[in-house]
């Protein structure tokens, strides 16, 4: 009896053991064979973390290596609403740090979502304060934020980048493919506490940062140009202003100033009109500054010489049933005086002697009606009408700077061609592209587009343009100790309501170069709609003088004319 009971118990025990082992075996087969693939994926998901890393956006520096735009990692704050116990309490704690209203934060935190941005790209100090709070359901990630440490300086050229780091305007947009850092997915191993143990990508390199740009721009020259232009626009109560400083021998842009300025660190509230780079997008009728190119063409084609006498018609001349006026009633004057006194009648006569075809050819040769191909986005081509659409008055009008649209950049490139002895250079703003380690990837050499006039013609025109500053309409462009060559321009604007020239809206300009005997700077100043004294010689020429004197001093260009201290004292 005892033996059979004992045997029965043994069978039960054996059965239980078999069941136990059987269930373990079943579970093992289920986990290791049947669900192996699915569980393996789940394990990887728990142990591995895939992160998207992006290399920092490249830096932009001026020609002396001063930082103009740079990326810094800053905190962005997100919330996980469905894990929060009291959204209101959390919102109250965050509000003073994020500078966002409590009700707005609460609204976001009450959403039925697992992720919501609360504030992006904050200041580093705000991030440090958030770390101290250490709130549940609130997380911080680091994102690259673009900083423009010089504020509004050079903003129209630099442009700006968007919230996700993509270049939207200016150089940021034009050189996006170089500036943007490499994007890369990396897999990291995590332990039970979520710490990174040993990154799988340990042997992989980190995402490469974007390339850096070295500009031809000089921060100091840019500052001088912007300050003087802002002053002039303010004094003249003008609508806007533009100034470009170019190295005439290379086409390198040393400064490009636009007024009014804007701060690229805070563009969200501004209209696109504010950040448009008028220096290369806006075409205007140049007025008398065009006479410099017309003079160059006429002398090159031997239509006139500087001492050829021209009759000024005493200030009135009829061309194609319209009367051309001069502000001075001139009789017989030399061609040099025609330019120096900015005679419309003299310019029209010489233009007509030059003829339609040759005038059109020289306009194209000087680069009008076509983009300069500067390495900035949004450049306009200006407007030079097809020759077959020219009217009977067109040659006379174009010779004195009407019926033609030019951008300030085209005009300064053309005047630089006269300055450097007759070669049209391609303007450029980026001189070097380097990788993150500083290795040179691309060096931009100066590029000559074409020879427009001979060196002899350029010298003749320079002498005439010097006369504009010593005895003509541009005396306020003079710089003590230096020979200055240039031309004033005062152009009436078209009234959009009537379609005719306005009697009250003008564009005042001065384009020239200095020192005339060995040009280091070619500059243009354009003031749009000045009030009061609207003449280019009164509004724009003084800006040329003030900027020119400071920049020449900064560059250490020695005086080309004897300067006595007595003269200096008199002026001080």
């Amino acid at each position, binding site marked *: 009896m005892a033996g059979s009971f004992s045997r029965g118990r043994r069978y039960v025990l054996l059965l239980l053991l078999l069941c136990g082992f059987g269930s373990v075996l079943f579970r093992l087969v289920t986990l290791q064979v049947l669900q192996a693939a699915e569980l393996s994926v789940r394990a990887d998901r728990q142990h591995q973390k895939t992160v998207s890393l992006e290399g920092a956006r490249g830096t932009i520096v001026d020609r002396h290596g001063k*930082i103009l735009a*740079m990326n810094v990692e800053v905190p962005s704050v997100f919330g996980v609403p469905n894990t929060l116990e009291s959204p209101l309490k959390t919102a109250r704690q965050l509000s003073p740090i994020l500078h966002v209203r409590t009700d707005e934060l609460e609204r976001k935190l009450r959403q039925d979502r697992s992720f919501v941005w609360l504030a992006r790209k904050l200041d580093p100090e705000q991030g440090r304060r958030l770390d101290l709070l250490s709130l549940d359901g609130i997380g911080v990630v680091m994102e690259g934020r673009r900083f423009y440490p010089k504020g509004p300086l050079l903003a129209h050229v630099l442009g700006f980048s968007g919230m996700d780091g993509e270049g939207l305007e200016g150089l940021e947009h034009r050189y996006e493919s170089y500036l943007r850092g490499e994007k890369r997915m990396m897999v990291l191993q995590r332990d039970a506490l979520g710490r990174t143990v*040993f990154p799988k990508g340990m042997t992989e390199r980190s995402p490469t940062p974007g390339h850096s740009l070295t500009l031809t721009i000089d921060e100091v020259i840019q500052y001088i140009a912007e300050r003087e232009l802002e002053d002039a626009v303010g004094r003249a109560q003008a609508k806007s202003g533009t100034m470009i400083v170019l190295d005439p021998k290379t086409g390198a842009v040393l400064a490009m100033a636009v007024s009014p300025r804007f701060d690229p660190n805070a563009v969200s509230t501004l209209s696109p009109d504010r950040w448009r780079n008028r220096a290369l997008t806006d075409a205007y009728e140049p007025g008398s500054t065009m006479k410099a190119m017309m003079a160059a063409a006429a002398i090159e084609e031997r239509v006139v010489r500087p001492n050829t006498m021209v009759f000024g018609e005493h200030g009135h001349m009829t061309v194609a049933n319209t009367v051309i006026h001069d502000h001075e009633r001139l009789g017989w004057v030399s061609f040099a005086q025609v330019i120096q006194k900015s005679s419309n009648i003299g310019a029209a006569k010489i233009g007509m002697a030059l003829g339609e075809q040759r005038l059109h050819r020289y306009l194209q040769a000087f680069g009008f009606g076509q983009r300069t191909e500067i390495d900035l986005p949004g450049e306009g081509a200006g407007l030079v009408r097809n020759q077959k659409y020219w009217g009977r008055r067109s040659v006379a009008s174009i010779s004195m700077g009407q019926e033609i649209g030019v951008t300030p950049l085209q005009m300064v490139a053309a005047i630089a061609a006269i300055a450097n002895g007759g070669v049209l250079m391609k303007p450029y703003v980026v001189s070097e592209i380097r990788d993150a380690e500083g290795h040179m990837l691309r060096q931009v050499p100066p590029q000559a587009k074409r020879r427009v006039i001979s060196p002899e013609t350029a010298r003749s025109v320079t002498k005439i343009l010097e006369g504009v500053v010593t005895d003509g309409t541009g005396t306020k462009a003079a710089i003590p100790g230096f020979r200055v060559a240039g031309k004033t321009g005062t152009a009436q604007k078209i009234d959009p309501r009537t379609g005719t020239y306005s009697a009250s809206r003008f564009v005042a300009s001065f384009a020239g170069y200095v020192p005339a005997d060995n040009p280091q700077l070619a500059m243009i100043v354009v003031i749009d709609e000045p009030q009061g004294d609207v003449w280019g010689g009164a509004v724009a020429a003084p800006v040329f003088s003030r900027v020119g004197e400071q920049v020449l*001093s900064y560059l250490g260009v020695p*005086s080309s004319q004897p300067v006595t201290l007595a003269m*200096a*004292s008199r*002026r001080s």
Partner: protein
Amino acid sequence: MKTVTVFVGLCLVFVFVWERVDVVRVGYHIERLKRDKTVLERQRDELRVKVSALSASDRIAKLATEKLGMSPPQQGQIIVVQSRPSDVHPSSDVAPVELKVAKNYLPSGRF
């Protein structure tokens, strides 16, 4: 012999385990150093931006005029002159020396 084999076997197991543990420990250490590096790089970038902002020309000019009472030189007050090399080094081929002279700092009565 058997004892020695067991001992050697245990040693090998110990070395293997120690190596795996050390790899994990070094991994944590590297990760911490990388975090420190990232923080330091971030601080360096912040400081570079700060230096750039503080050295902006308009800020310097504002401080010079408002705090130090300086004023920009007027027209004709700065004269850059170029000396002829023969004046300084009559027989050498030294490049011309450019001198920057501010009128206000010239000794009186010397010119």
